[in-house]
């Protein structure tokens, strides 16, 4: 792999601001309650989290614990009802307006009246990129997710996994500094998933992006992350934050190492603790 590898510490020092200069997301005592027809639902409770520039942070937790909600708060798609949050040291709204991030939704959310290529083109058009640049990015990113040849198909003509991949290509085409991804690989088979995991990691290592990633797969979380945030069931709380010290240019092989299995076991325990099944 030819990507330039820089240890995390080194880059942090390279920043112009001191102290928490590298803090991309800073969440303090955040909570969120939904009002529903049969009473309020507390989705997030007293969350603290600090994501540094260049981090790859995974959220993992039982279904319905608030991972999506937390990601949406970061993206300014949901307003917290308590606590504070900054993204790139400004409010999430300002960050959103500055197009600070790319977002991959849990469902594909493709527009049915646009072909796959034009769906990927959508954010690029909005950003006002010139046509040649748009075409290049579309071609590159569709190839990356192995969808070359499907440019002219409409979303309803693709399988579920293909739609999901198209939506990943759409987010990557933006080439954002901060990537927010909500179970992007949920609908993919193991081989494609492994492949995309590696691609994502390469991209991350090469471009020094910050990634916030929601997943259900423990190995995936351990393989990808520099930091794993384990959440408890509703109201979502952070029960554990686990650091993963693997080098940035790790390969799939590390999944067989004892260190890997140890971290995975720790995550699994944290996760199990939050569940109510006693089998």
């Amino acid at each position, binding site marked *: 792999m030819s990507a330039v590898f820089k240890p995390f510490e080194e880059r942090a020092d390279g920043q112009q601001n001191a102290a928490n200069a590298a803090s991309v997301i800073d969440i303090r005592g955040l909570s969120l309650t939904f009002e529903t027809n049969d009473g309020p639902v507390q989705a997030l409770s007293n969350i603290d989290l600090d994501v540094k520039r260049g981090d790859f942070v995974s959220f993992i937790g039982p279904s319905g614990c608030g991972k999506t909600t937390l990601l949406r708060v970061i993206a300014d798609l949901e307003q917290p009802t308590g606590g504070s949050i900054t993204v790139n040291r400004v409010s999430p709204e300002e960050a959103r307006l500055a197009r600070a991030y790319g977002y991959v939704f849990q469902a594909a959310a493709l527009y049915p009246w646009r072909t796959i290529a034009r769906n990927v083109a*959508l954010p690029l058009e909005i950003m006002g990129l010139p046509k040649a640049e748009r075409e290049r990015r579309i071609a590159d990113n569709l190839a990356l997710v192995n969808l070359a040849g499907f440019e002219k198909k409409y979303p309803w003509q693709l399988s579920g996994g293909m739609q999901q991949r198209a939506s990943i290509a759409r987010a990557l085409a933006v080439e954002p500094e901060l990537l927010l991804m909500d179970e992007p690989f949920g609908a993919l088979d193991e081989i494609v998933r492994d492949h995309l995991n590696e691609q994502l990691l390469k991209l991350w290592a090469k471009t020094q992006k910050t990634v916030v990633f929601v997943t259900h797969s423990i190995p995936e979380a351990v393989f990808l992350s520099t930091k794993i945030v384990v959440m408890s069931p509703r109201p979502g709380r952070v029960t554990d934050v686990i650091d993963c010290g693997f080098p940035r240019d790790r390969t799939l092989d590390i999944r067989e190492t004892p260190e890997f299995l140890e971290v995975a076991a720790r995550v699994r325990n944290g996760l199990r603790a939050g569940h109510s099944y006693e089998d």
Partner: protein
Amino acid sequence: MSSRGHLQPWIAFLGLFAAVALPLDAADAWRLLPREGVPGWIVILALAVAAYASVRAEKSALTAILLAFASSAGAWAALDLLPGLAGHTGPGFWALLFTSWLLAWALVSQLAAIKPRAGPAGFGLKLLVPLLFGAWLLIFWQVIVVAFQVPSVLIPPPSAIWAKLVSSIPILAADFRQTFLKAVIAGYVIGCGSGFLVAILVDRIPFLQRGLLPVGNLVSALPIIGIAPIMVMWFGFDWPSKAAVVVVATFFPMLVNTVTGLAASQPMQRDLMRTYAANYWQSLFKLRLPEALPFIFNALKINSTLALIAAIVAEFFGTPIVGMGFRISTEVGRMNIDMVWAEIAVAALAGSVFYGVIALIERASTFWHPSFRA
């Protein structure tokens, strides 16, 4: 439907039997279909063969051809007999008509079941089915009016309307030009256009949404009838006043539909736009307008018929002596009801073509909507 498909030919046999056995003429018990000579026998045979064919092979090209031949032969015979039976039609006549109709319906069911195909053949088929339906509508109309001797100042028979239509083409063309080409088209474009623009404006400025929409509803719910005399007062006798009425009539449906349509996008699709920090116009053009298209077309279609009605009604309140509404109102007063219906036929044709064109555009531009994907 398939069970009824089996039942139909049997009822047809019964009807055929009645047509053969019962008198055609209420005043002459011996006037029977078989005694009508060779044409009578041809009709009987054709009906019998077609009914038999549709019992044996419900769906086949041969059956379709037989059905088409038999039902038109039956209808032709009934219409041919009709003038001589005016006022004293017998049960045999009605049985003949009914049997022919039943077989025509069987044919329509068969044609409708054919999978839609692209190209001119598919288009022809799409036209053929409603035309068959319409033809039978006209046949029944003709038969009822003549058989029961309805005074032609009330409802004239289609044959008389057709004759009038053919002999009055220059007048009809001039009326069409005045009402449709001038008033309707201008009013429709301005009305739909301004309804759309105001909808965008209302959407853009929340203050207007809260202030203008309720008041707008009030103003634009003004009944066209009341508007027409005022528009004639303001814009004079010629077509601009009619166009103004059309503008008012088409404005409201467009406004309501566009406003509804602009709110129709899925929350997640809107969220996507938010993550791109898309500005108002970007999310309007790239998300909300495409999503609103089905609603906008709904308004365009409703308006296409509304516009024509509005223009014609408006001409009742003052006009130069040309125009479809003028002709209708004048000729009613002159007891020339056949001319009235000729004008109505032109209006119906123009309106249907207008609607059809918009429906075609709709299909081409909202092909992705679930209602077309099925």
